[in-house]
């Protein structure tokens, strides 16, 4: 299978105006991914599926990832002239990356038995307005998985045939897998060794009524 650079080059030719970047991957798995912009994602996906050299007809996995705002510190060795001498100094740059919600697709080819090609799409609005194009018209395996991303992350997919909650019940309000999700205080009502959960839960309950002597009655009293 051709390398990601070649795929990127050909995709940019076939789908004019598409902006594709290659996202690096630090682990030894060497699974680099293509970051596709949202307007041309559908056309790029169709190219990836129908191109005779690639035929990526099997969409194996659709994942949602939540990235909060973060600052990445990079330390680079830079040559600087200090007091007339050239020295190598460590320069630390801080890069502020705003948060986004991401959908990652792992594509394989069943006809040619190669892969994976990983593509990503990002939605920068982490509030109600997160919209991404749905790739279900191209790969039907994305149908349930995109519904799951909508349910657990809150990303709406334009063009999905049946976008509703799948794992949580329909009246549920929040999106649980987000990193800033706060679980309700009283969901764990059984005594556990973790006292802080119990303390938080107890704040929601009414205080227990006064004992009125009912505890004095034992089982033998009721039989004559």
């Amino acid at each position: 299978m051709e390398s990601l650079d070649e795929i990127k080059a050909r995709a940019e030719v076939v789908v004019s105006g598409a902006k594709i970047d290659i996202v690096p991957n630090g682990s030894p798995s060497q699974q680099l991914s293509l970051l596709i912009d949202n307007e041309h994602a559908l056309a790029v996906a169709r190219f990836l599926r129908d191109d005779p050299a690639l035929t990526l007809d099997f969409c194996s996995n659709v994942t949602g990832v939540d990235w909060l705002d973060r600052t990445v510190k990079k330390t680079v060795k830079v040559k600087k002239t200090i007091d007339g001498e050239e020295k190598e100094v460590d320069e630390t740059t801080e890069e502020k990356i705003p948060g986004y919600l991401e959908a990652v697709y792992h594509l394989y080819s069943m006809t040619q038995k190669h892969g994976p090609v990983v593509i990503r799409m990002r939605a920068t609005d982490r509030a109600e307005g997160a919209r991404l194009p749905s790739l279900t018209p191209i790969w039907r395996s994305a149908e349930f998985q995109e519904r799951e991303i909508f349910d657990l992350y809150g990303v709406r997919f334009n063009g999905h045939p049946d976008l509703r909650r799948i794992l949580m019940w329909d009246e549920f309000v929040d999106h649980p897998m987000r990193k800033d999700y706060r679980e309700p205080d009283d969901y764990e009502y059984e005594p556990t060794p973790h006292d802080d959960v119990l303390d938080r839960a107890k704040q929601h309950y009414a205080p227990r009524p006064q004992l009125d002597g009912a505890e004095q009655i034992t089982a033998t009293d009721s039989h004559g």
Partner: protein
Amino acid sequence: MTATIQTLEPVERPPTTMGSRLDGELLEVSMGPQHPSTHGVFRMNVALEGEIVRKLKPVFGYLHRNHEKIGENTSYLGSMPYTDRLDYFCSMTNNWAYALSVEKLAGIVVPERAEYLRVILAELTRLQNHVSLLGFLLNDMGAWGTPLMYAFREREKILDLFESLSGSRMMCDYMRFGGCRCDTPPGWMERAKKVVDVFPRFLDEFEKLIVSNEVVIARTQEVGKLSPELAINAGITGPMLRACGVNYDLRKVDGYGFYPRFKFRVPLGDHGDTYDRLMMRVLEMRESIGILKQAFEQIPAGPVMNPKVKIRAFRPPVGEAYGRIEAPKGELGFYLISDGGTNPYRYRVRPPSFINLTVLEDLCLGHTVADVMVILGSVDIVMGEVDR
């Protein structure tokens, strides 16, 4: 006390004949979460016209346990016992898939004996999974537990092997990153060989219950046909895909572990109906026995764990990896994103049963309600995996 005959007022009852009220309307039935044949808490909203299914919408989430969120809050090692509980029939293959993904993420090498042990345990898992699936399917078709008990009798032998090796019958928690947790106790290999030697005789007997039985043939042939194009597009994997004739077995395609060293064939089906899916599992069991016999001969002595891997405070490099194996139900994949800490940043399970259910509606349209159960049984779902 004298009895008085009460006079009943004549009541105006609405007409109930088929022609007047129900004609042209679909009856919506919830084949609800509590059902003896739905393989767990699984609900299907079915719209019926008489007995024919016109629409089918599956409803999940009854067993949703937040496995992925727990994975983000637990260390890499701590998530290993939770993976046992995903597809609770096949804990060894779940462990292997997770260990494989972490080993891909961190670039860890596994010693030879551990790889052979992993193959042996995965194929034993495949045997016991397929045999219980056939038992459950015959149970759903009305054989009321007898083939199921025969299947479970063989499954018990394999579970006894797992118990003496890892300590627990189903929740084994046996694989680690870089190998297996502990070596086999003395005598284990001989007992495993005995179990595998007896299995073909049982399989011959069991096949007689399925293969030529007229009831099974009438209820499963030409029922739930899946075309290969739809299967590939919908991401179906595992025996369900191979029953349609598509030759895609991850043990041959990816060649993970030491599978390239074993000679085995991949059975393919012709029609893609339920009968082919059944026979697919029977044939795969025979191939698994072949692989097991080869593995028992080839397994070397040696360590079962890579000594360089830390158990506590295991921090893989920053990055991501997607590792997948051929679990008995399909392609089980784990996608891990690491940010350099002890807990993964994103921990995702690609569940085969969940994605195989995408085409459930397409398979059931036009068939009767009784066929829905047979088709669902042949898809082979486990709710622990579907809902996570």
